[in-house]
């Protein structure tokens, strides 16, 4: 009876207290014709020893790869202390801190996290997390729609150089409402959104403009110009950023003359392992005046009856368990433990550490990029400024190259053909601080063999 502590005597005595003969009787309110006698097609129980062996075999199958894929999830070094501390039982096995006095640990962490994230984004306030980057963007758009009291029809400008999965997610979530999602194409030469294109294609009024930095191709947008352009048209600017990059790049709160209105994105680069895509966490920051439309939990500082500092979940009146159908969002369980890890990560790395990591990523990317350019049959698709990811075009089918390199346990990047067939045989390549010069040379050497 895994995890069940009852002795036979316990069961007998408990049943007699209840006044029934068997546990089965406790289910007597369930219509008999609905009850089943057992479950089918479930493998027999393993003990922990066998389970760990099975798990090791499975994990082994997927391991030992040299990964140059980015595209929204980035391999970074995570100090061992981060998860050693985050997975302490007291953090990991607690629930949402509804009983504040018994949850000051988690609550203070959330408060510290909000502060760090707001500072990193140069924004006023942050919530305590959403599910992931793509759904955080969807929530940001819904928030912008709530804030927009002027426009009847909510138009949202979504550039096509935004991560395709983000666009898909936004579509799946936001199209439940009456919204227009406007796709604005990127400049074919630079890979960026340009004001020319915007002026040509966009309506006069719209609710919000989503600006990715860097964009899906790793290219850096002219964020000041774009922000000011949108603000001039009375729209809100939603920044979708890589938070690690913000240690190096201009943060959303400083874009253009007034700064972006919301900043959101994927928290994964800040101390969360790749882990097949999750659990990660979405972050969302905004201006102080908009806080009551900010979805998700928020921790706040207050005082106890003796005047001592303490923390609580605050502004709960926005949330579903109080406001129900009129809540700012339906989100309840969020990604608390990831935020805990991220808070420890940011504390250990500090601003300098984060910036050094971002710089090293960039420098490594530059190194590989320069070496790739020197390979016959490869060209860099866009010659714009970039962070740690870039698009290269091959003069031969990408699929064949991929197959060969996969056999060598190299993941050379993401083939973009499914998403952007018009770009041809392209590969989106990412390099982080985890790659050594030797890794880069090995990649080049194997790529040349495979082409």
């Amino acid at each position, binding site marked *: 009876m895994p995890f069940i502590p009852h002795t036979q005597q316990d069961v007998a005595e408990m049943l007699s207290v209840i006044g029934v003969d068997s546990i089965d009787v406790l*289910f007597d309110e369930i219509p008999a014709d609905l009850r089943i006698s057992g479950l089918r097609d479930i493998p027999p129980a393993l003990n922990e020893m066998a*389970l760990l062996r099975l798990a090791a075999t499975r994990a082994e199958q997927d391991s030992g790869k040299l990964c140059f894929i980015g595209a929204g999830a980035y391999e970074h070094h995570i100090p061992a202390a981060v998860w050693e501390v985050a997975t302490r039982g007291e953090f990991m096995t607690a629930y949402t801190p509804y009983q504040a006095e018994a949850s000051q640990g988690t609550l203070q962490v959330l408060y510290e996290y909000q502060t760090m994230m707001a500072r990193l984004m140069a924004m006023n306030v942050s919530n305590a997390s959403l599910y992931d980057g793509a759904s955080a963007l969807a929530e940001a758009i819904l928030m912008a729609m709530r804030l927009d009291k002027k426009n009847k029809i909510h138009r949202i400008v979504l550039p096509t150089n935004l991560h395709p999965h983000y666009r898909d997610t936004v579509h799946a979530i936001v199209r*439940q409402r009456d919204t227009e999602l406007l796709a604005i194409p990127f400049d074919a030469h630079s890979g960026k959104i340009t004001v020319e294109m915007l002026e040509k294609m966009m309506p006069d009024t719209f609710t919000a403009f989503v600006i990715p930095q860097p964009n899906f191709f790793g290219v850096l947008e002219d964020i000041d110009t774009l922000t000011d352009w949108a603000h001039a048209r009375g729209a809100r600017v939603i920044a979708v950023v890589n938070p690690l990059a913000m*240690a190096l790049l201009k943060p959303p709160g400083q874009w253009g003359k007034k700064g972006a209105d919301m900043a959101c994105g994927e928290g994964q680069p800040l101390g969360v392992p790749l882990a097949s895509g999750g659990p990660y966490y979405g972050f969302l920051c905004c201006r102080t005046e908009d806080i009551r439309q900010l979805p998700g939990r928020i921790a706040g500082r207050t005082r106890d009856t003796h005047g001592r500092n303490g923390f609580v979940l605050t502004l709960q009146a926005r949330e579903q368990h109080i406001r129900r159908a009129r809540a700012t969002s339906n989100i309840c369980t969020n990604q608390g433990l990831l935020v805990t890890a991220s808070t420890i990560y940011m504390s250990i790395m500090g601003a300098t550490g984060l910036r050094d990591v971002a710089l090293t990523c960039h420098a490594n990317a530059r190194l590989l990029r320069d070496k790739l350019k020197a390979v016959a049959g490869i060209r860099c698709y866009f010659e714009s400024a970039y962070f740690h990811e870039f698009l290269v075009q091959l003069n031969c089918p990408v699929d064949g190259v991929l197959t060969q390199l996969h056999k060598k346990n190299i993941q050379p990047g993401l083939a973009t053909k499914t998403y952007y067939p018009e770009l041809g045989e392209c590969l989106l390549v990412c390099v982080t601080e985890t790659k050594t010069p030797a890794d880069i040379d090995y990649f080049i050497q194997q790529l040349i063999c495979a082409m």
Partner: protein
Amino acid sequence: MPELIFDLSRKGRCAHAQLPPNTLQNATDIPAELLRVQPAALPEVSELQAVRHFTRLSQLNFSIDTHFYPLGSCTMKYNPRGVHKAAQLPGFLQRHPLAPESHSQGYMACAYELQEILKSVTGMRAVSLTPMAGAQGEFTGVAMIRAYHHARHDRARTEMLVPDAAHGTNPATAAQCGYTVREIPTDADGNVNIDALRAAVGPQTAGIMLTNPSTLGVFEQKIKEIAAILHDVGGLLYYDGANLNAILGKVRPGDMGFDVMHINLHKTFATPHGGGGPGSGPVAAGERLAAFLPTPMVGKSATGYEWLTAKACPQTIGRLSTFMGNAGILLRAHFYARLLGAAGMQRVAEFATLNANYMLKRLTAAGFNAAFPKRRASHEFIITLKKEAKEYHISALDVAKRLLDAGMHAPTMYFPLLVPECLLIEPTETETREVLDAFVATMILILKEMQTQPDKIKQAPQYLPVSRLDEVAAAREPEVVAGQEVIEHA
């Protein structure tokens, strides 16, 4: 309370062992106008300072690993460490979500098997694992219902029915999907008021969101009748799986007539709650709705496991997360299920129910009032302190805080909203009888204190790092980030 990490910060301090080698760092060719000028004011601390700070913070929490945590509707059961260890294997942690299928067969095998297990448990036809918590599962299900009606060119259905006892995520989700929410009242025994339901349904009805057993801790006996009422008018049934722990292997939502449902893996499948998350809310669907499930899912072919995306699922409602949901939680749930096997899952429901009924019996024997005295408890039950509130001016909140002082986490308070001064108590199957007895003994003590030293209750908690916190002040002038002054405004 400990200092803030920012108070420990000193300019120029850092965790040197974590810095990348600075050989290439200054080689940036990024134009100056794109760069950050002033570094973010993150804490500058040593590694030891960070470890000590967060270790001490952790000690301020109650948690399953340290305390009994009978938080109704939350299923705070033991989170097996073996499962955690298995999911943390480097091979799992290092896999990129967009790694090729040939480099992903280990993970995909686990995900595929979990889909199969959840199909078996729910009695549904197909499962998508991507929703990242219960509420996202609800969103998924309701969006699928909407897609179903739209696919049949039926755009007149604008209402979603929700019992008044429902969890707040139900109405919030329905609204987020563009539905008008219509509340259905509960009758005196905790069942959905069937007459009211009949009166409410019509061609405008998209569906109903139900949990069964409900959040009132009782099993909805007329569930088949309810299903018929809905189906007869062309509406569909959504099952909120938060309470699945009560019926695992005993009765299946698919058999009850539900069309779609989510499963809170972080409840029934014992994945840790992490102080608020992550969770995971896979969605299972029957005949009518399977085609609309969100992608990606995992399929199996002769050559191995493969991703099923929009191409293979043309009617899918699409994608709900950047990648494939909370994969690490899915691994944990899968491993937990493998430790239990089919028999183990049934035992979960049996012993969770045994524990709840035992506590209910003992508490009512001690003089507490059950909200639904004629009913069996499911895996949880409600007591109402209405009488005590009147007699002694002691509220459910007071009792909750006093329990904290006794070293036990409080039950869920004031939910469901329709039961006054209620405590929703869910012991789970992994707690011993002694622990339940200790809780009952404390409740009896508190009942005595109401008469003899009510201040002890009113002033609780006294033995925690802080006493009662002023939530009203917190919400009036929210201070949600430290030291606003240092934020660099644009």
